[in-house]
């Protein structure tokens, strides 16, 4: 019989002689941010590669988490319904009504108007339940108790900043409240966002998997921190440019602030990853934002990797952008001494010496 740690118990009830549906003892959150139009799902499970089954999201359409004795087809079918303009509660009703295994299913849906709805089948293993509110739905099964979803909700509502940070805070809170009774194995975060210029963000704005790990939420946070220092920082600046072009300076400012927030978070947690610090500092320097924090980050990164000429170049760039031409020249000269043949560093030094021409 299959009752292993990876294939779950709930399905056994269905039939002992069939391959059971993959079971996801899971807690998850689906959410919508009306300002940025991000839609996202974050999930943790005592099942292998939860990203494969539970989270579904499409920009301008909606976000879905399908779990417990998982009916994965709820994901694509639900997105089809949302795409046609059905509201989240109607989608949940339609999916559940169509499914003979409905009492074993758990489902959470949020649409692009922020409407949300959930279903927890009566045969989901205890504790199982959900909480919904404007712009979010939180659901879980085989949990330590109701506190898991209650604490996830509180964390989501009380965490400021971007959607991904709020989703991850909810996962942390769910785990801290006891999480999944059977432990942890995989986690995922999926956030999508409309973009005219960068179509990839519509399906993959943030899309990180932890497939099989002893501490998946911790690992998810670790990879998210790399992501936010690199690709996400770049994405924010792309959105800032797009908003500027559209005359939405307020929203452009929010995007740039996000990069600064990421930088501040990195400094606050005492980030020891030189490349993360360097990535954020460089992005801020290039765009002339959060320069004091960028300086702190670059100095810290140089301390961690004193012979890394790329990081020294970042520090020099920050100095230069802050108007400290002398220090920029001094640091870049030191970098060039380490790599005398580097044509890029030579050009940078000449630029700093010339001054002014930022």
């Amino acid at each position, binding site marked *: *019989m*299959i009752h292993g740690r990876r294939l779950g118990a709930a399905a056994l009830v269905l039939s002992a002689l069939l*391959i059971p549906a993959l079971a996801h003892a899971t807690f998850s959150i689906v959410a919508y941010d009306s300002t940025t139009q991000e839609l996202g799902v974050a999930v943790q499970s005592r099942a*292998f590669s939860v990203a494969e089954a539970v989270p579904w999201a499409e920009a301008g359409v909606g976000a879905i988490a399908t779990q417990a004795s998982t009916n994965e*087809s709820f994901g694509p079918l639900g997105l089809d319904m949302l795409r046609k303009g059905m509201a989240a509660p109607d989608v949940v009703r339609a999916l559940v009504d169509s499914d003979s295994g409905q009492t074993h299913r758990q489902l959470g849906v949020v649409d692009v108007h922020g409407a949300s709805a959930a279903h927890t089948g009566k045969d989901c293993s205890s504790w199982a339940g959900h909480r919904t509110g404007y712009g979010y739905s939180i659901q879980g099964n085989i949990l330590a108790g109701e506190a898991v979803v209650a604490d996830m909700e509180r964390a989501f509502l009380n965490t400021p900043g971007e959607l991904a940070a709020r989703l991850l805070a909810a996962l942390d809170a769910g785990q801290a409240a006891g999480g999944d009774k059977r432990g942890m194995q995989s986690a995922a975060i999926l956030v999508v966002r409309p973009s005219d210029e960068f179509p990839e963000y519509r399906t993959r704005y943030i899309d990180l998997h932890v497939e099989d790990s002893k501490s998946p939420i911790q690992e998810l946070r670790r990879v998210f921190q*790399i992501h936010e220092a690199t690709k996400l920082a770049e994405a924010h600046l792309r959105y800032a440019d797009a908003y500027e072009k559209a005359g939405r300076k307020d929203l452009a400012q929010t995007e740039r602030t996000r990069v600064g927030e990421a930088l501040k978070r990195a400094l606050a947690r005492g980030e020891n990853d030189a490349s993360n610090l360097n990535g954020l500092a460089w992005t801020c320097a290039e765009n002339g934002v959060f320069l004091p924090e960028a300086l702190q980050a670059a100095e810290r990164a140089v301390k961690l990797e004193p012979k890394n000429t790329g990081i020294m170049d970042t520090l020099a760039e920050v100095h230069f952008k802050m108007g400290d031409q002398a220090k920029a020249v001094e640091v870049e000269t030191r970098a060039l001494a380490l790599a005398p043949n580097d044509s890029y560093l030579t050009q940078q030094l000449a630029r700093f010496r010339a001054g002014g021409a930022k």
Partner: protein
Amino acid sequence: MIRPRRVPSFLAGAFVLACAGFAGPALAIQQTSTFSIVAYDSVTQELGVAVQSKYFSVGTAVPWVKAGVGAVATQANVNVALGPQALALLATGMSSADVMRALAATDTSWAGRQVGIVDAQGRAVNWTGPRCMDWAGGETGPGFAVQGNILAGPAVTAGMAKAYRETKGEMAERLIAALEAAQAAGGDKRGMQSAALMIMRPSTTHPQYNTRYIDLRVEDHKTPIKELRRVWNIFEGFHLANAHLDFADEYDAEGRHDLARLERDRVGESMQRALKRNDRDVSLLNGLAWACATHDMFLGDAVEAAKRGSAIEPRNVDVLDTLAEAYFRDGQAAKAVEVEKRAASIDTKSVYLKQQIERFQKGPVQ
């Protein structure tokens, strides 16, 4: 400048600009040093991409696949948008070669790009821009294209093509074999960081396979291909075994019994691979043995897998039940009863186990 181990890209961007004689501040251009394969299987209609890179989370940037449409890898000085754009063009019915021409006509930095495309008729093409960093190149074959940049040499992509051609069985195995061959041939000059395997497959009964048949990631790891192989081995024992049986049912319902048979064989092949590599993951052995036993196939291997699982966890009632079921299906009812009684002596309250014993004692009534 950004030149850390995680965003080497930006350095390469600076390099490109420096070569081009720009004197201004470096722009953030993402240069992924990467090798990848895009492929189409005409029997199963799978479309897939496998990729490795010295780049964080390559799975979110390089591979783009849509069932019934095509598979795309966009890399080098990567323009991620080429992925969804190419899929949108392929979806209109354009061939891979026409799509490549269309991308070339609109992309302003085409000389720095590397792209591989295969369409849903198996026509494969690739492009390596003259500005891609050495060694850069690739080749195409029937139903596949391999391409890479900043590689140890041409042996890397040649090795990939050879491994893909010569590996038998399902596409995922063949794609991973290609990655492993690339790495064995020197791989990415700058080392390794992430890998991904993405395969889509059309299904009328299970729409999730259209967008997510196999989607495995290694985001940030010292040995990403090895880790990808590890998670793949878990995946094929669980999700994929289910998927194969779903497709077998779908094909049977359509009267395509030859294809249904092939799907069931895949599950058996997964189990044989698990036995061959001496897998010690009890739940995997148990899962595969259970799948085969309950579908009356590969029963000898199912008995062996369940035995091994049971040797590792002798008091695991579920594994004993699987072993008993496998014995029973294999015509060894006496052994089935004996094993199930052992299980029942561990879990004395189980109604299910008692029912199983009664069933085994009655003998085969299929």
